[in-house]
Protein backbone atom coordinates (compact mmCIF):
# COMPACT_ATOMS: atom_id res chain seq x y z
CA UNK A 1 0.00 0.00 0.00
CA UNK A 2 1.53 3.26 -1.13
CA UNK A 3 0.87 5.79 1.59
CA UNK A 4 2.27 8.83 -0.23
CA UNK A 5 1.51 9.19 -3.94
CA UNK A 6 3.61 11.66 -5.93
CA UNK A 7 3.10 13.03 -9.41
CA UNK A 8 4.31 13.61 -12.02
CA UNK A 9 7.17 11.15 -12.33
CA UNK A 10 9.11 13.61 -14.47
CA UNK A 11 8.72 17.24 -15.46
CA UNK A 12 10.41 19.54 -17.94
CA UNK A 13 9.97 23.31 -17.74
CA UNK A 14 11.71 26.28 -19.26
CA UNK A 15 13.78 28.64 -17.19
CA UNK A 16 11.48 31.03 -15.35
CA UNK A 17 8.57 28.60 -15.37
CA UNK A 18 6.75 27.38 -12.25
CA UNK A 19 6.95 23.61 -11.89
CA UNK A 20 4.38 22.08 -9.55
CA UNK A 21 4.80 18.68 -7.95
CA UNK A 22 1.85 17.10 -6.20
CA UNK A 23 1.57 14.60 -3.39
CA UNK A 24 -1.37 12.88 -1.74
CA UNK A 25 -1.38 10.92 1.48
CA UNK A 26 -3.73 8.45 3.08
CA UNK A 27 -2.81 8.29 6.76
CA UNK A 28 -4.53 11.13 8.62
CA UNK A 29 -2.11 10.68 11.52
CA UNK A 30 0.71 12.17 9.45
CA UNK A 31 1.59 15.59 10.84
CA UNK A 32 4.91 16.51 9.23
CA UNK A 33 5.41 16.91 5.50
CA UNK A 34 8.93 17.61 4.25
CA UNK A 35 10.27 17.88 0.73
CA UNK A 36 13.75 16.59 -0.09
CA UNK A 37 15.90 17.60 -3.05
CA UNK A 38 18.46 15.27 -4.56
CA UNK A 39 21.12 16.20 -7.10
CA UNK A 40 22.86 13.51 -9.17
CA UNK A 41 25.54 11.71 -7.17
CA UNK A 42 24.34 13.16 -3.87
CA UNK A 43 22.05 12.04 -1.10
CA UNK A 44 18.70 13.79 -0.61
CA UNK A 45 18.67 16.96 1.49
CA UNK A 46 15.80 18.68 3.26
CA UNK A 47 14.44 21.55 1.17
CA UNK A 48 11.33 22.76 2.98
CA UNK A 49 8.74 21.32 5.34
CA UNK A 50 5.27 22.07 6.67
CA UNK A 51 3.00 21.05 9.52
CA UNK A 52 -0.76 20.70 8.86
CA UNK A 53 -1.74 23.70 10.96
CA UNK A 54 -0.84 26.06 8.10
CA UNK A 55 -1.95 26.05 4.47
CA UNK A 56 1.18 27.51 2.90
CA UNK A 57 4.85 27.96 3.62
CA UNK A 58 7.42 29.88 1.59
CA UNK A 59 11.19 29.72 1.71
CA UNK A 60 12.78 31.77 -1.03
CA UNK A 61 11.49 30.54 -4.39
CA UNK A 62 10.03 27.35 -2.91
CA UNK A 63 6.45 27.16 -1.64
CA UNK A 64 4.48 24.31 -0.11
CA UNK A 65 0.70 24.45 -0.43
CA UNK A 66 -1.16 22.20 1.96
CA UNK A 67 -4.80 21.07 1.79
CA UNK A 68 -5.63 19.10 4.91
CA UNK A 69 -9.21 18.22 3.92
CA UNK A 70 -8.09 16.83 0.58
CA UNK A 71 -5.00 15.18 2.12
CA UNK A 72 -2.84 16.76 -0.54
CA UNK A 73 0.22 18.97 -0.61
CA UNK A 74 2.31 20.39 -3.41
CA UNK A 75 5.65 22.05 -4.08
CA UNK A 76 5.86 25.11 -6.31
CA UNK A 77 9.17 26.49 -7.56
CA UNK A 78 8.91 30.12 -8.58
CA UNK A 79 11.17 31.50 -11.33
CA UNK A 80 12.78 28.09 -11.82
CA UNK A 81 16.46 27.95 -12.77
CA UNK A 82 18.59 25.28 -14.46
CA UNK A 83 20.27 24.77 -11.07
CA UNK A 84 16.92 23.54 -9.72
CA UNK A 85 17.18 20.48 -11.97
CA UNK A 86 17.08 17.60 -9.51
CA UNK A 87 14.88 14.84 -8.18
CA UNK A 88 12.32 15.95 -5.62
CA UNK A 89 10.75 13.70 -3.02
CA UNK A 90 7.78 14.47 -0.86
CA UNK A 91 7.48 12.64 2.43
CA UNK A 92 5.28 12.34 5.49
CA UNK A 93 5.75 11.27 9.05
CA UNK A 94 4.21 11.26 12.49
CA UNK A 95 6.13 13.46 14.90
CA UNK A 96 6.58 11.99 18.34
CA UNK A 97 8.98 12.30 21.22
CA UNK A 98 11.14 9.35 20.29
CA UNK A 99 11.92 8.55 16.71
CA UNK A 100 9.93 8.99 13.55
CA UNK A 101 10.26 7.41 10.14
CA UNK A 102 9.60 9.10 6.83
CA UNK A 103 7.32 7.64 4.18
CA UNK A 104 8.56 8.92 0.82
CA UNK A 105 6.82 9.45 -2.47
CA UNK A 106 8.41 7.89 -5.53
CA UNK A 107 10.08 11.08 -6.64
CA UNK A 108 9.85 13.58 -9.49
CA UNK A 109 12.75 14.24 -11.85
CA UNK A 110 12.70 17.93 -12.73
CA UNK A 111 14.62 19.35 -15.66
CA UNK A 112 14.72 23.12 -16.09
CA UNK A 113 15.91 23.97 -19.57
CA UNK A 114 17.98 27.14 -20.12
Amino acid at each position, binding site marked *: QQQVKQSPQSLIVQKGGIPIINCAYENTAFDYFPWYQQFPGK*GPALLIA*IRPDVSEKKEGRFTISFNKSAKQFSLHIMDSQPGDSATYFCAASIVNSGYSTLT*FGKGTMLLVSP
Partner: protein
Amino acid sequence: DVKVTQSSRYLVKRTGEKVFLECVQDMDHENMFWYRQDPGLGLRLIYFSYDVKMKEKGDIPEGYSVSREKKERFSLILESTSTNQTSMYLCASSTPDRGPIWDLGETQYFGPGTRLLVL
Protein backbone atom coordinates in the same frame (compact mmCIF):
# COMPACT_ATOMS: atom_id res chain seq x y z
CA ASP B 1 27.60 20.80 9.38
CA VAL B 2 26.22 17.32 9.77
CA LYS B 3 28.28 14.77 7.97
CA VAL B 4 27.15 11.29 7.07
CA THR B 5 29.73 9.18 5.31
CA GLN B 6 29.39 5.83 3.63
CA SER B 7 32.27 3.42 3.29
CA SER B 8 32.08 2.96 -0.48
CA ARG B 9 30.64 4.89 -3.39
CA TYR B 10 30.62 1.95 -5.79
CA LEU B 11 30.73 -1.80 -5.23
CA VAL B 12 30.60 -4.72 -7.64
CA LYS B 13 29.88 -8.15 -6.17
CA ARG B 14 29.04 -11.59 -7.46
CA THR B 15 25.84 -13.41 -6.53
CA GLY B 16 26.18 -15.12 -3.16
CA GLU B 17 28.92 -12.89 -1.79
CA LYS B 18 28.56 -11.19 1.60
CA VAL B 19 28.55 -7.41 1.64
CA PHE B 20 29.01 -4.94 4.49
CA LEU B 21 27.95 -1.36 3.94
CA GLU B 22 29.07 0.98 6.67
CA CYS B 23 27.69 4.36 7.60
CA VAL B 24 29.21 6.85 10.05
CA GLN B 25 27.70 10.09 11.30
CA ASP B 26 29.48 12.79 13.27
CA MET B 27 26.57 14.61 14.91
CA ASP B 28 25.85 12.29 17.83
CA HIS B 29 22.45 11.47 16.32
CA GLU B 30 20.35 8.83 18.04
CA ASN B 31 18.55 7.59 14.94
CA MET B 32 20.06 6.00 11.85
CA PHE B 33 18.41 4.59 8.77
CA TRP B 34 19.18 2.48 5.73
CA TYR B 35 17.23 2.97 2.48
CA ARG B 36 17.49 1.62 -0.99
CA GLN B 37 16.70 3.85 -3.94
CA ASP B 38 15.52 2.44 -7.25
CA PRO B 39 14.25 4.32 -10.32
CA GLY B 40 10.51 4.72 -10.20
CA LEU B 41 10.28 3.30 -6.69
CA GLY B 42 11.72 6.16 -4.67
CA LEU B 43 13.32 5.58 -1.28
CA ARG B 44 12.30 2.50 0.61
CA LEU B 45 13.25 1.95 4.24
CA ILE B 46 15.15 -1.26 4.94
CA TYR B 47 16.03 -0.97 8.65
CA PHE B 48 16.46 1.74 11.22
CA SER B 49 17.95 2.07 14.68
CA TYR B 50 16.98 4.48 17.46
CA ASP B 51 19.74 3.53 19.87
CA VAL B 52 22.89 1.47 20.15
CA LYS B 53 22.17 -2.24 19.68
CA MET B 54 18.53 -1.46 18.84
CA LYS B 55 17.07 -2.13 15.41
CA GLU B 56 13.67 -2.06 13.79
CA LYS B 57 12.53 -3.47 10.46
CA GLY B 58 11.46 -1.06 7.80
CA ASP B 59 9.31 -1.77 4.78
CA ILE B 60 11.67 -4.13 2.94
CA PRO B 61 13.95 -5.93 5.44
CA GLU B 62 14.06 -9.29 3.67
CA GLY B 63 17.57 -10.27 2.64
CA TYR B 64 19.21 -7.67 4.88
CA SER B 65 20.42 -7.36 8.44
CA VAL B 66 21.97 -4.50 10.39
CA SER B 67 24.34 -3.88 13.23
CA ARG B 68 24.75 -0.88 15.51
CA GLU B 69 27.48 -1.45 18.07
CA LYS B 70 28.42 2.23 18.42
CA LYS B 71 26.21 5.28 18.31
CA GLU B 72 27.95 6.83 15.33
CA ARG B 73 28.08 3.70 13.18
CA PHE B 74 25.32 1.71 11.47
CA SER B 75 26.12 -1.20 9.19
CA LEU B 76 23.95 -2.87 6.57
CA ILE B 77 24.75 -6.52 5.88
CA LEU B 78 23.78 -8.48 2.82
CA GLU B 79 24.51 -12.07 3.84
CA SER B 80 24.22 -13.59 0.37
CA THR B 81 23.76 -11.08 -2.40
CA SER B 82 21.34 -11.60 -5.25
CA THR B 83 20.94 -9.68 -8.50
CA ASN B 84 17.72 -8.07 -7.26
CA GLN B 85 19.75 -6.30 -4.59
CA THR B 86 21.48 -4.22 -7.25
CA SER B 87 20.55 -0.73 -6.14
CA MET B 88 21.64 2.57 -4.61
CA TYR B 89 21.89 2.30 -0.83
CA LEU B 90 21.47 5.43 1.24
CA CYS B 91 22.20 5.92 4.90
CA ALA B 92 20.66 8.71 6.98
CA SER B 93 20.74 9.96 10.54
CA SER B 94 18.50 12.16 12.66
CA THR B 95 17.86 13.31 16.18
CA PRO B 96 14.49 13.81 17.87
CA ASP B 97 15.82 16.94 19.58
CA ARG B 98 14.16 20.00 18.15
CA GLY B 99 16.48 22.73 17.03
CA PRO B 100 15.43 26.19 15.88
CA ILE B 101 11.73 26.93 15.78
CA TRP B 102 11.69 26.39 12.03
CA ASP B 103 12.70 22.79 12.60
CA LEU B 104 9.19 21.41 12.48
CA GLY B 105 10.05 17.77 12.54
CA GLU B 106 12.89 15.33 12.51
CA THR B 107 15.27 16.17 9.66
CA GLN B 108 17.10 13.22 8.18
CA TYR B 109 20.63 13.84 6.93
CA PHE B 110 21.71 11.56 4.13
CA GLY B 111 25.06 10.22 3.05
CA PRO B 112 26.12 10.26 -0.61
CA GLY B 113 25.01 6.68 -1.24
CA THR B 114 26.65 3.42 -2.28
CA ARG B 115 25.84 2.08 -5.72
CA LEU B 116 25.92 -1.72 -5.53
CA LEU B 117 25.99 -3.89 -8.62
CA VAL B 118 25.47 -7.62 -8.11
CA LEU B 119 26.48 -9.76 -11.08
